[in-house]
């Protein structure tokens, strides 16, 4: 009778201590942990009496504190990660929308030299602030893409997303410099170079998304949005080197590439909404 009371008391105290775990975890596993501890208490008492019970408690308490701390830590980081992913997806969409907006406004701009607007007018709006803001939003969006889908897409895609994020930061700095007209060309080159690396990183990530089917559909959108402009630039460089000329692509071709890029990135960002992230599965 006395031993029965000791086991019950032991289980009650243990059950109270389960309050240290996060609520969801406690509700899911608390009763089973409590039952397990009751079984252990019964066994310890039967084999070694009160000494056995004390030894059991001494072994169980550090384990309980350690795992409760770990579960609370996981809960907190998981919550902030979820928030970051949600925020990042919207940042990506807004960044792409700003790109599209800048492109559309740029296209409306007319001048005698460039009757249909286009890249030149777009540059002017970038100078005004849309560029830096879009790049900053892309930086947040790409960082969250890397965190949410990097593991599923593979290590190369993950590295390319890191390069992409660095590119967006460099591009943003370049855009600010260009906007402030600090010293012209170097800032402009930093902006263009940063943007190209940003797009290239997204494009390679898109290829791995297609290969590994990271998203349920339209995985190719990232590849299309990311690779169109870098491929056009590459074709231009190859052409210029081969013909030893300084011929640039026709304005309509640049506009088309820019349009495809912005629309594809916007569609890719919208597709991410409502999509649950696939995170790392390592059991360590």
């Amino acid at each position, binding site marked *: 009778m006395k031993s029965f009371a000791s086991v019950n008391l032991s289980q009650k105290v243990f059950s109270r201590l389960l309050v240290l775990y996060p609520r969801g975890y406690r509700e899911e596993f608390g009763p*089973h942990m409590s*039952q*397990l501890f009751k079984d252990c208490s019964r066994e310890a008492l039967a084999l070694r009496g009160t000494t056995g019970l004390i030894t059991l408690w001494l072994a169980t308490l550090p384990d309980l504190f350690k795992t409760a701390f770990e579960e609370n830590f996981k809960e907190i980081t998981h919550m902030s990660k979820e928030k970051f992913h949600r925020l990042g997806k919207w940042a990506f969409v807004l960044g792409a929308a700003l790109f599209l907006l800048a492109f559309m406004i740029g296209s409306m701009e007319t001048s005698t030299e460039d009757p249909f607007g286009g890249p030149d007018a777009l540059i002017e709006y970038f100078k005004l602030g849309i560029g830096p803001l879009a790049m900053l939003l892309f930086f947040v969006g790409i960082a969250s893409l890397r965190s949410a889908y990097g593991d599923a897409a593979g290590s190369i895609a993950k590295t390319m997303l890191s390069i992409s994020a660095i590119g967006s930061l460099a591009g943003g700095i370049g855009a600010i410099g260009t906007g402030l007209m600090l010293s012209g060309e170097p800032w402009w080159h930093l902006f263009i170079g940063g943007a190209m690396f940003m797009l290239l990183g997204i494009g390679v990530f898109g290829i791995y998304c297609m290969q590994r089917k990271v*998203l349920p559909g339209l995985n190719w959108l990232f590849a299309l949005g990311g690779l169109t402009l870098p491929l056009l630039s590459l074709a231009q460089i190859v052409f210029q080197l081969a013909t030893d000329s300084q011929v640039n692509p026709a304005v309509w071709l640049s506009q088309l590439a820019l349009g495809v890029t912005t629309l594809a990135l916007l569609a890719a960002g919208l597709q991410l909404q409502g999509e649950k992230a696939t995170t790392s599965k390592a*059991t*360590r």
Partner: protein
Amino acid sequence: MKATTAPHDLLPLTPAVFHILLALMDQERHGYGIMKEVEQQTEGEMVLRPGTLYQAIKRMIELGMIEETDDRPDPALDDERRRYYRVTGLGRKVASAEVDRLRKLLALARNKQVTAFGIYP
């Protein structure tokens, strides 16, 4: 959408996870049953406490390595509040992959003449 998990993506396993998988290989068990089996199969070297055991179980369920089951080996003899677990197809593949990993590691150690008794040049 969840990308398909390859067994190798889940390696290396922690000793607790590997021993829980081994404990569930031959039959379904509840928490206490797993604990006793692990203790027995390691000759008392590893004793899983409630916190560590259920932390590992939670993670293994999330990863699809084990699952809960409503079946009871003998309902008349068992407390229906207990939850039983069984290993899944993925769990078996992960265990095999871990065995293969350990086999290669052991072969490497033997090549380097590292034994349980020390290093022999």
